[in-house]
């Protein structure tokens, strides 16, 4: 469980990107709001990538940024964030899937085996030996999500996960997300909001302005989402 207490974040030399956010992430959450409202920054602060300029990020009740490096790494491994624009490292798709597993102490053989199995679950074995420049953006995005999911994170944060996906791959993605315990998704996609359910958080001008069970009949989409 992730909790933000009066969290503020400012990029060097810039204005406040998020200001005074208090949130508690348990279960499913969908983050909506116009471009520049602070969704991505909020996700990066919540997923322990950015250290807040002010305020606290608690993981299971513990102040993450007050911990030593070793303990931080342990907690960081429970939370995985997937970028809006897929980022793959040098090497093949299998190397990409194996990378975080090897970082967690798996042997290369074990990691590659898990990677192959993961690819077979989405019928994408043919991508195994492809390199990043040989993939479409949609394929790269799906691989990024798969790379996150094989780590079995307790908390998964996705930034615009359907931005580059066609209908079939979107279905694959939704199936993959079914078993995730704590899921936070930032999106502009009204259908995805409906499909994921959970509580809705509206970002506007760096503030989390609304929190509650999501109800499409209230027309949240017309209230400033682009």
């Amino acid at each position: 469980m992730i909790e933000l207490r009066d969290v503020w974040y400012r990029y060097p030399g810039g204005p406040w990107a998020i200001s005074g956010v208090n949130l508690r992430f348990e279960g499913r959450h969908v983050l909506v709001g116009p471009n520049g409202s602070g969704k991505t920054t909020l996700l990066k602060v919540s997923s322990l990538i950015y250290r807040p300029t002010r305020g606290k990020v608690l993981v299971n009740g513990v102040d993450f940024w007050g911990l030593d490096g070793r303990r931080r790494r342990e907690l960081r491994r429970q939370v995985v964030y997937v970028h809006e624009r897929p980022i793959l490292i040098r090497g093949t798709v299998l190397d990409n899937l194996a990378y975080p597993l090897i970082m967690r102490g798996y042997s290369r053989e074990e990691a590659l085996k898990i990677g192959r199995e993961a690819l077979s679950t989405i019928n994408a074995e043919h991508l195994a030996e492809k390199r990043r420049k040989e993939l479409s953006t949609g394929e790269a995005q799906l691989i990024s999500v798969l790379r996150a999911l094989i780590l079995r994170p307790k908390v998964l944060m996705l930034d615009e996960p359907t931005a580059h996906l066609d209908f079939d791959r979107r279905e694959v993605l939704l199936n993959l997300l079914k078993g995730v315990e704590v899921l936070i998704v930032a999106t502009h996609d009204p259908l995805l909001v409906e499909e994921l359910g959970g509580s809705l958080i509206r970002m506007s001008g760096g503030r989390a302005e609304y929190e509650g069970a999501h109800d499409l009949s209230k027309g949240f989409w017309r209230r400033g989402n682009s």
Partner: protein
Amino acid sequence: MQLEVVVRSLTVSGTATLLAASWSVPLAYFLVKSRSSRVLIPLLEGLVGVPTVLIGLLLYMLLSSKGPLGPLRLLYTPQAIAVGQSILITPLITSVSYRVLTHSWGRYGELALSLGADEVEAMRLVLSESLPGLLGAVIMGFSRALGELGIALMVGGNIKGYTRVMTTAIALEVSKGEFELATWLGIFLVGIIALISLSLRFLGVKDDRTP
């Protein structure tokens, strides 16, 4: 005889480049991770174009027998040229590496952290993914060192068989009116730089990032 000059040029400038890279790349990484870069990077960028004779002069004053580093007896040695060239190319390698690493940290540093890495693991990934760009920065530094004249002349002294390098040899041949030899040396100088750059490309040190 000219081959010996070429070998010396490569050795001296290669040493200078290795020296400069050994502190410039870590410095660039440190600047990416710290907020002091907002002051230091514009300063370093300004120093990229510093005249080589100015560094030569400063080094000459430091290394001359009455200077503070005089007892080291480095003046008019290949080592003095290497030190001077390493100082000359430090701002260039640092500022180019800084640009490369800033971009890389934004992508791969964040990616590593998002997948549960600690700072050291993130640094490893960032450096590995930045290799083509960092090598580019180092080659730029090497080219600048190989092609400079002021430092080699002032602290090297252009001593035949000891501190004569390609640029000082070209300058000497021109002063003697031997333009043909000077031109050939110049072509050779540019050829070496192009060859090194191309070799690294063919060795596979290239970027395969998605466009």
